[in-house]
């Protein structure tokens, strides 16, 4: 398959089941809601070492938030419910509770509840106040700028992590420009995050390593400087490869995000130095979710 001169490889991205939650952060203005959201989702690029994958889903207008203030919704993904709960609580406590004027609310409903402010309330040292409003429990925790309002719990849902595609370009600036275009389009899609810095990862990995202590290492088949030194997947004219990783609440959400992202890259086309779109997988044996590029773009 070729779109606008860009070859779409006959391959697939392989993704895994994860647990996810959404939280809504509001603040006195959009600036402080965004600061809290960026802090809460910092150092959360990969479950390999961060404990979770997190990102900003979108900015919310005041009429979309529970308290009528400017807000941001964030999604957090982890491999299990226990890890998700721990990450959520730690990040809420250190990054949102501490951020001036913020409030924190559940962003997703589910039968499975995980603590949001339920345990943070103890920071109130006995002065915290519970309020149950329309069936939801809130905690009012006295803090130095006034009161930190937080919902007690949020929902935990099954999700999918690790959808991806690779952008293979004739130069590094062209690969980056294409990824930036893809991310701009994908950020408009609901229920997904692209957890790596700016949504783009330049150090895609393969499973395993020559070093026994490492379970992942550089994806040498896609490293352009190793074209002559390893079994490469790159043609001679490809000088740079970048990857976009997508976590989504459902497989369909990732399908849709991949489609608009790849389309944005293809819109730039061969004229802007884009040669191929490929994807990372492990032979289909590890992850139950397969995203076939040509089917998505059909």
């Amino acid at each position, binding site marked *: 398959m070729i779109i606008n001169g860009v070859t779409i490889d006959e391959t697939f991205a392989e993704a895994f089941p994860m647990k996810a939650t959404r939280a809504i952060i509001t603040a006195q203005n959009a600036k402080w809601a965004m600061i809290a959201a960026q802090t809460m989702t910092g150092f959360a690029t990969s479950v390999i070492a961060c404990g979770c994958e997190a990102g900003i889903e979108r900015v919310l207008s005041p009429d979309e938030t*529970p*308290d*009528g203030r400017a807000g941001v919704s964030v999604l957090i993904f982890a491999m299990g419910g226990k890890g998700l709960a721990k990450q959520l609580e730690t990040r809420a406590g250190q990054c949102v509770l501490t951020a001036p004027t913020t*409030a924190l609310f559940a962003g997703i409903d589910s039968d499975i509840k995980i603590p949001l402010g339920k345990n943070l309330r103890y920071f109130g040292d*006995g*002065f915290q*106040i*519970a*309020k*149950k*409003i*329309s069936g939801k429990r*809130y905690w*009012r925790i006295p803090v130095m700028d*006034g*009161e930190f*309002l937080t919902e007690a719990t949020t929902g935990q849902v099954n999700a999918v992590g690790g959808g991806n595609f690779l952008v293979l370009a004739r130069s590094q600036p062209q690969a980056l420009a294409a990824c930036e275009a893809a991310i701009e389009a994908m950020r408009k899609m609901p229920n997904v995050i692209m957890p790596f810095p700016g949504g783009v990862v330049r150090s895609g990995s393969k499973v395993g390593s020559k070093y026994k202590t490492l379970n992942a290492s550089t994806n040498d088949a896609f490293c352009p400087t190793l074209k002559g030194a390893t079994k490469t997947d790159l043609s001679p004219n490809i000088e740079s490869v970048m990857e976009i990783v997508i976590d989504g609440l459902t497989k369909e959400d990732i399908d849709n995000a991949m489609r608009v992202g790849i389309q944005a890259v293809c819109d730039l086309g061969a004229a802007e130095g884009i040669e191929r779109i490929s994807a990372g997988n492990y032979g289909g044996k590890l992850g139950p979710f397969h995203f076939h590029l040509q089917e998505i773009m059909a």
Partner: protein
Amino acid sequence: MSALTFTLKTQPVQRVDMSPLVCQTLQGLSIADIAAQELQSGKRKFRVDELFTIDGSDAQNIVIKNSIEKLDFIGKELDGGTITVEGDAGAYLGMSMKKGEIKVSGNAGLYAACEMKNGYLEVSGNVGDFLGAALPGNKMGMKGGIILVKGNAGQRVGDHLRRGLILIEGNAGDYCGSRMTAGTIAVMGNTGRYLGYAMRRGTLLLWNAPQLSASFNDCGAHTLAFLPILFNSFKALNSKFADGSVGFNRVQRYAGDMAEIGQGEVLVKLN
């Protein structure tokens, strides 16, 4: 199916215990069975059809017409369904109700919604003392649900209140929120003396400045984030509370009762 309607056809001399006439106990019974139910009145027992004419069949939707203030225990331990009272209700209206909805077009007597667990109770007129309170000797009053009073409430509103919401469009009498351990009482009108007497926790939300005891301490003026969410939750109510313009988030906060553990609060609207 039309509502199961009980129309009072005689004026009982003594008070009547209406507790058998709730949705869950009448469900599935024939009109003849319902008519044969007995209601205690003083030391006598009356068949239901001696006091009421009975129409309709939907036991999940009960209407009591020509109701008077001698009909006690209406909706006692109601566990789903609706009861509409046309006229006044006696004492212990909606006592210990668990679920469902009770609406009274007139006034209600003492101990309305006492020890209520959940559901919704609305009184268009006034209510007597001990609204949403604990029964004498008990330590736990209302534990959940919403009470809306469009008129005035008597003394000891929410005595020993544990959880839930009491909304009063008119005035509340003395000792409003006495001994409450949590929950919220909102009063649009005026409040009497000894507001929040011995309250431990909970919120008294007032539109007008109260006469506070010396054991309530001023915590200053504040903008509280939970108030817009609370007011937003009133929007579905058939009440002045549903009017967006009555809400506020700027309050003077008083902590008390300091003669108790002092973790309660009186929030007074600031203009």
